[in-house]
């Protein structure tokens, strides 16, 4: 007995959940056909993401929709041709007896048309009404049924006031609008599919059985463990991060580095998942699990990004939600007004025109489509943009701040000398190494590396303070490694011999124990080759630039001058960086922060947009809004990305201005009785076409811009 209500509840709940993100769809839910079935989505981004994953049957589906549209157009064109003859008075005078049979012919043509093309609208409207919603389906359904039903009644009464042509044109043009929208979605999904294919990718795995014979099996990339050998044939995509064990070829690493270049690969060289193999077969040993390659992680992040709502998208959805009931009321009011003054027919025509002209089909489409295409374009160059909202912020940046170490300078630091005071070099290196092993910071990595051959203990009870330093117990001694400010924060004394700056002003890491600073490791900074170009390109875009570093003032000043950065701040603790950033936001407006993503987490979070330069091997740790591609030229992607965001924003704004402006004008005309319903439907379809084409052009323009 209990099973039945439970099942009903489940299906009702299923109806009200987004098919992609499984959250309740709320008031703004949308119904779309994907893969031949109607589903509800909470937003357009979810619909796109769902389509990418479940759109295998798109092609036959599109063909079926097109056939329906074509057959509908066939019937409509016959109706229209005869209607035009009627309007032009072809059946007046001697041939007046033909008028009634022609009307019957129109009814004969319109009935299958309403059944064929109207069915999806009626079904959608019924479902929406059952859930207490008003959607565009409801508007179209009401309009078409009113025109068709009224005409049929008039025909049966022997009158010749029939509007089958109106019902037919409204239906066929709306079906055209829906078809175009679905096609735009299919194409967007198709351009996203290669990126997201990573999650379903398979690879040729080489297995050895007991007697040493090798065989090849196809395996899901997700299931590949580190150490497994994978074969990649020419033209195939490399599925794992690993090292070449056999073969020689060249790989296009655009999906990883953003640079569309072929790089020679031979035995012993690292290859990256997502790159495309060139001319020769390669045998690769996976270095990390298949699911942990950057390629896989980017795919996951892009899929998540698609479902994230943008500010503009949400705003538009909200407007649409109040727009539809408003339009329905306006249509009723218009019909009532004209009914009193010019009779039922004028009422029908004006009411219908208002319903049809105001259908906001193109409104909800503009923002998600433009954003999804931009996110896809970025991802194809190895850039992760986490959602349309990030793009919107990127487009209105006023200033951009850079972290120094690992961001504008190379992540790999070269220690060039050690200074000591009251201790031996060996002692200093012993403590420094013991602490450094516990951190992933570039300075710590460099120290751990030079001391790697010296055996030593590990520090215990280590506390790491991001951007400042670390402390812990080594052999029972309390010791610390970090900036001068960190040492001061410990309250430890700084010998004069160590406090002075060196002439080249490079990065310094102080080492101390037992309440006293004992040594200092000096590093040479090398500027990243791509940083000056990227910064100049950003300044040409009119952005203010800012350098924020925890390092000593001379080093930062020298670097700022070399890079042409306008303002710099040195010797900042992480909380100081956050403060500097907040000040910049106050004085400039929107400020992006570029950092290495792991050590700058809080600072990136405080910025309008946090941008990580993508050094991290595990993207899951990245909390930044944007992750630039890996490799020597990763930062060059930044000006391109800003251009992309600006283009997407521009296209979006134009679309919204167009759509809202058009709706306002057309609505006024329709309510005033100056717009025929047929013309209104034609305008509506044209506006959908324009929005779709504009979004596409923006995507294509961004691709061409670099």
């Amino acid at each position, binding site marked *: 007995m209990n099973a039945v209500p439970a099942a009903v509840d489940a299906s009702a709940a299923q109806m009200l959940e987004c098919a992609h993100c499984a959250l309740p769809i709320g008031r703004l839910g949308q119904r779309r056909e994907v893969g031949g079935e109607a589903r509800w989505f909470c937003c357009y981004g979810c619909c796109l993401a769902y389509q990418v994953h479940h759109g295998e049957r798109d092609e036959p589906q599109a*063909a079926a929709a*097109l056939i329906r*549209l074509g*057959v509908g157009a*066939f019937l409509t064109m016959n109706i229209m*041709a005869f209607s*035009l003859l009627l*309007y*032009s008075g*072809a059946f007046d005078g001697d041939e007046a007896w033909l008028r009634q049979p022609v009307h019957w012919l129109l009814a004969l043509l319109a009935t299958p048309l309403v059944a064929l093309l109207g069915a999806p609208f009626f079904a959608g409207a019924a479902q929406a009404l059952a859930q207490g919603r008003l959607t565009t389906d409801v508007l179209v359904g009401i309009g078409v049924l009113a025109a068709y039903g009224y005409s049929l009644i008039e025909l049966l009464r022997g009158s010749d006031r029939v509007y089958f042509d109106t019902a037919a044109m409204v239906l066929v043009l709306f079906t055209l609008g829906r078809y175009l929208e679905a096609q735009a979605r299919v194409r967007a999904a198709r351009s996203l599919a290669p990126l997201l294919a990573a999650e379903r990718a398979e690879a040729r795995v080489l297995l050895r059985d007991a007697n040493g014979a090798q065989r090849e099996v196809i395996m899901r990339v997700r299931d590949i463990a580190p150490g497994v050998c994978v074969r990649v044939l020419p033209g195939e995509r490399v599925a794992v991060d690993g090292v070449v064990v056999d073969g020689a070829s060249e790989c296009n690493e655009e999906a990883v580095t953003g640079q569309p270049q072929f790089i020679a690969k031979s035995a012993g060289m690292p290859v990256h998942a997502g790159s495309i193999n060139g001319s020769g077969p390669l045998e690769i040993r996976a270095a990390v699990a298949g699911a942990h390659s950057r390629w896989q992680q980017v795919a996951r992040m892009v899929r998540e990004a698609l479902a994230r709502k943008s500010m503009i998208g949400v705003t538009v959805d909200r407007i649409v939600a109040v727009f539809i009931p408003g339009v329905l009321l306006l249509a009723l009011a218009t019909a009532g007004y004209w009914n009193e003054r010019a009779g039922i027919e004028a009422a029908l025509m004006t009411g219908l025109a208002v319903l049809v002209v105001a259908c906001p089909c193109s409104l909800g489409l503009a923002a998600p489509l433009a954003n999804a295409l931009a996110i896809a374009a970025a991802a194809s160059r190895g850039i992760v943009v986490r959602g349309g909202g990030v793009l919107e912020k990127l487009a209105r940046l006023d200033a951009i701040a850079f972290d120094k170490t690992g961001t504008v300078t190379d992540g790999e630091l070269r220690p060039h000398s050690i200074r000591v005071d009251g201790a031996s070099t060996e002692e200093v290196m012993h403590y420094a190494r013991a602490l450094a092993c516990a951190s992933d910071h570039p300075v710590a990595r460099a120290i751990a590396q030079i001391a790697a051959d010296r055996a030593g203990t590990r520090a215990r009870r280590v506390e790491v303070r991001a951007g400042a330093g670390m402390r812990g117990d080594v052999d029972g001694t309390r010791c610390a490694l970090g900036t001068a400010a960190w040492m001061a924060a410990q309250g430890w004394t700084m010998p004069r011999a160590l406090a002075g700056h060196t002439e080249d002003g490079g990065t310094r890491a102080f080492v101390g124990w037992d309440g006293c600073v004992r040594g200092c490791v000096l590093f040479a900074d090398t500027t990243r080759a791509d940083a000056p170009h990227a910064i100049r390109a950003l300044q040409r875009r009119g952005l203010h630039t800012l350098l924020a570093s925890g390092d000593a003032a001379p080093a930062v000043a020298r670097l700022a001058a070399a890079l042409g950065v306008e303002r710099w701040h040195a010797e900042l603790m992480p909380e100081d960086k956050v403060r500097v950033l907040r000040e910049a936001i106050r004085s400039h407006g929107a400020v992006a922060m570029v950092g290495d993503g792991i050590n700058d987490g809080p600072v990136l979070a405080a910025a309008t947009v946090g941008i990580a330069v993508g050094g991290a091997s595990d993207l899951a740790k990245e909390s930044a809004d944007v992750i630039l591609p890996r490799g020597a030229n990763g930062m060059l992607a930044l000006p391109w990305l800003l251009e992309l965001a600006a283009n997407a924003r521009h296209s979006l704004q134009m679309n919204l201005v167009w759509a809202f402006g058009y709706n306002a004008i057309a609505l006024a005309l329709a309510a005033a009785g100056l717009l025929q319903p047929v013309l209104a439907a034609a305008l509506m379809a044209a506006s959908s076409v324009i929005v779709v084409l504009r979004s596409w052009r923006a995507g294509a323009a961004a691709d061409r811009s670099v």
Partner: protein
Amino acid sequence: MSEVSLLFLAGLAGSVHCIGMCGGFACVIGADARGRAATLLRQLAYNAGRVTTYCFLGALAGYLGLLLVAQCGDDSIVAWIQRGFAVLSGALLVYVGLQFFGGHARGALGAGGALLADAMRTLVRAPGLAGPLAFGVLNGFLPCPLVYAVAAQAAASGGPGSGMLTMAAFGLGTFPALLAAGAVGAWWQRGGVPAGVATVSLVSRASGGRAAHAGSGRVLALRCAGAFIVVLGLVTVARGLLPLSGHIHPMP
């Protein structure tokens, strides 16, 4: 009446042009597995769809022309509008005709046309009659200078009825060539070779054993048709330019 038959001839000659593109579609629609009659029905559905679109465009153009004329009221302006249409139509015809001599008879598709053609490709293989019918309907909307030329004539013809007749005559003129192209496609499919290969080679292979020989025959046919269309275009332009009385021919 002579007008209508002239347009029928224009369609007939122009369909050599059509074979370049629409002929390819007709070929690809190909045969129905259920036999000859079914294949013929399939081809007829395709052509019916196409001619319906033409008729609709003709009626629409005629209606718009009528509205334009009715708006002006003044007879001299009406005459100027009709002359304008005649010159436009004639110029387009001359353009199409001259293309035949350029060796490359296909009209270039605009961006919109390319999108439409791309979408239509999915329809080709659909079984049943609805697919070819829908295909034909959409095919009729593909940008084609020949269709524009005749539509301009329909606009000048005086009303939706005569406009429809104008385009219908033209459409029926293209019927035989495209039916033939469809037959070639069906024949080719029965031969077990996958269709959808380059159309021109299909046509030349079909019209004779040796490809080179057939090619030269085809070029001759193209040039004849081209010359006819150029002459027709010049006549149409002349009708627009020369102050002949009675150059407005309301259809009976």
